């Protein structure tokens, strides 16, 4: 990943010397860059992003599971989804989202969020975690591996 990006920055179309004027930039993939005065990347600060869910908005439709499994495995198979929507087996109630492994979204599109039609899940940057938690309604999806 690093080398691919390094080549990308080194031979950027905008400038052979770098990717632009000094300062902070955000790459399309979400990675935050700090560039020196020549436009070279001096550090990468890919923020850690965390999956949050709103248990009261989630309707339990499991479209996110389908989207995730499709994006990462090519087929619609909820068993292969990174995130799972769990509900009580008998009551069919109380929907909870968990992760079965750390997110590995290949295409970086966060398909699960894109396909959530009721906006019940979202990815939150590290720095935004406190404010998101403070809202009360959003819960961080626990990792159960």
């Amino acid at each position, binding site marked *: 990943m690093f080398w691919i990006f390094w080549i990308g920055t080194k031979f950027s179309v905008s400038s052979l010397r770098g990717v632009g004027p000094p300062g902070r930039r955000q790459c399309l993939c979400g990675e935050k860059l700090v560039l020196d005065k020549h436009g070279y990347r001096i550090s990468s600060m890919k923020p850690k992003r965390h999956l949050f869910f709103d248990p*009261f908005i989630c*309707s*339990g*439709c*499991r*479209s996110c599971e*389908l*989207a995730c*499994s*499709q994006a990462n*495995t*090519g*087929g*619609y*198979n*909820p*068993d*292969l989804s990174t995130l799972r929507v769990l509900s009580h*087996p*008998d*009551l*069919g*109630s109380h929907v909870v989202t968990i992760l079965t492994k750390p997110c590995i979204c290949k295409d970086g599109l966060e*398909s699960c969020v*894109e*396909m959530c*039609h*009721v906006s019940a899940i979202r990815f939150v940057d590290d720095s935004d975690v406190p404010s998101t938690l403070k809202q009360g309604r959003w819960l961080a999806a626990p990792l159960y591996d």
Partner: protein
Amino acid sequence: MHGYAGKILTLDLSSGEKEIIALDETMIRRFLGGRGFVSSWLYENLPGRVDPLGHDNLLVFSSGPCNGTLVPSASRGSIGAKSPLTSIMGSGNTGSPFSVQLKRAGWDMVVLSGKARRPSYLFIDTGGVEVVGCEDLWGKETPDATFALRSRHGSRNVSIACIGPAGERQVPIATVIFDRFRAAGRGGIGAVMGSKNLKALVVKGSGGIQVAHPKSLKQEVLRFVQSLSEEPYYKRYSEEGTGVIVAPMHDMGCVLVKNGMSGDFESIRSLNADHLKKDWFIRQKACFSCPMPCTQQYGIREGTYRGAYGEGSAAASVIMGFGPRCGISDIKAVAKAYTLTNELGLDLISTNAVLAFGMECFEKGFIGTSDTGGIPLEFGHVPALLEMVSQIGMKKGFGAILGQGVKKAAELLGSGSERFAPHVKGMDMMEVDPRGFPSWGLMFAVSSRGADHVRAYDVSQIMPFSDEELVAIAGTPEVRDMFSPRGKGRSVAFFENIRAVADSMEVCRFVTRGKLGFPENLVGMLRAVTGLDFTVDQLYTIGERIVNVERLFNLRAGMTKAQDTLPERYLREPLPDGAAKGKTVPMAQMLEDYYKARDWSLISGFPSEEKLENLGLSLVGF
């Protein structure tokens, strides 16, 4: 074969013989899947004069091409058999993930025949099917049976279809309950399952579903959901469920009040959405892969019916059925009655139809407490209603008579009660008064499973279609006029065709109730899923073919054209009050238009030879 598992499983429960049949592309191109598969299979494999509760009846479960993919609301599943209630086609469509798991287990269809030697359930997974004895589950209500099977087979990826005491006792209005809360199989499919000594089907899915063009499917889905979110019904249904339409429908004069004796129910406001939200709803839920959470999870928190709990997408049917139809204005009692029907495995609509019919008989003095075992079966009498629901489910007392459906109950009771027995071809009518909604009257009269609203679900009067769209649908914008018979025949035929397509793709007709149900808006997703080059015209033809094959099945089973009508009350007795006061259903002209639109004989009711040839159908076994 993208979008399909590619295999059909047939099992003879008597001998245990199994056969695996490969799904061929011709069948897909002719009938698409789901309801189309069920109907065509029954037409081709079930002779006309089979006893619905005998060994030879076939019970078919089928999934469709879109099940288990991102296609919005594609978690429906179809079920069918010859109906013990009507002796014509009995079928249904449910919103549980049953069909998704069926396809993930590797089966497009499961066809059951014969009768198991002892009470059993079927466990179906990728390895095939296993018949498991279950004397311990026989007699259990549907939640208990579901819990027991879940504890044996797990809950994730497992879907359970089971019958309750009503199905076991072969009550002709018994239905099949899926995953505790969902039902399908009007016309007594639960009784057919009971007659086969089959308590449940447990399906465990494990595989993935491949589609032909995932990227294009994603784009189509996002476009579809965007259009859906702009539809006016999306927000209302998502926030308040289908129950939100009850009060407006009452104000249009088309809610059955006291079995059709009236068109005005003064307590209707106590059943409207605000009260529901306050007293009943817990939250909105969605079916698997559906963007529109129109199902209410409900529960009664206090009072006599404290603890009643469940979920159901048919809130409008529930409220109109146990509410105005039975004269009850207590929403909690309505919820309790609905919970009971699910627990016993009864068809909600048929149950409230027979109860309201029984109440009218009681009010008119055709029956008394000596007939009902001391139960005062009066309109609005909640304890009597709840007791009678239990009796119907357990097939005991007066409930054993009412449980036969209104047609047979009226024959047993006599005294001219046939005149107000609300049924078509033996199927109990749903809770809309056709005098206030004539096109729905036509729908009831011609539906392939008897008085039923979802086979056509004609919305040309209640959705904001443009003039051009109405011309395409019905040939005239005048179809918008509720009480004019003009255009209604063509409109019902049009909607029957497109609903057959949606049912066969297994997408929900509530999500696709407006323009989104037109094949123009569905064909892109179907192509992306299957990789087959379906055109819009082909889909319209497939819809028409399915409706015609169901018609042929019914005609072969002994149905006649004369049965395409409504009970006398709705044709001759003007509605005494309400918004549609003084109206009756102008059936003759609408029916004639419908037959012309269908190219069916006005004399025999058979499709014309030319029509059959165009659709590639033939008369088999007549």
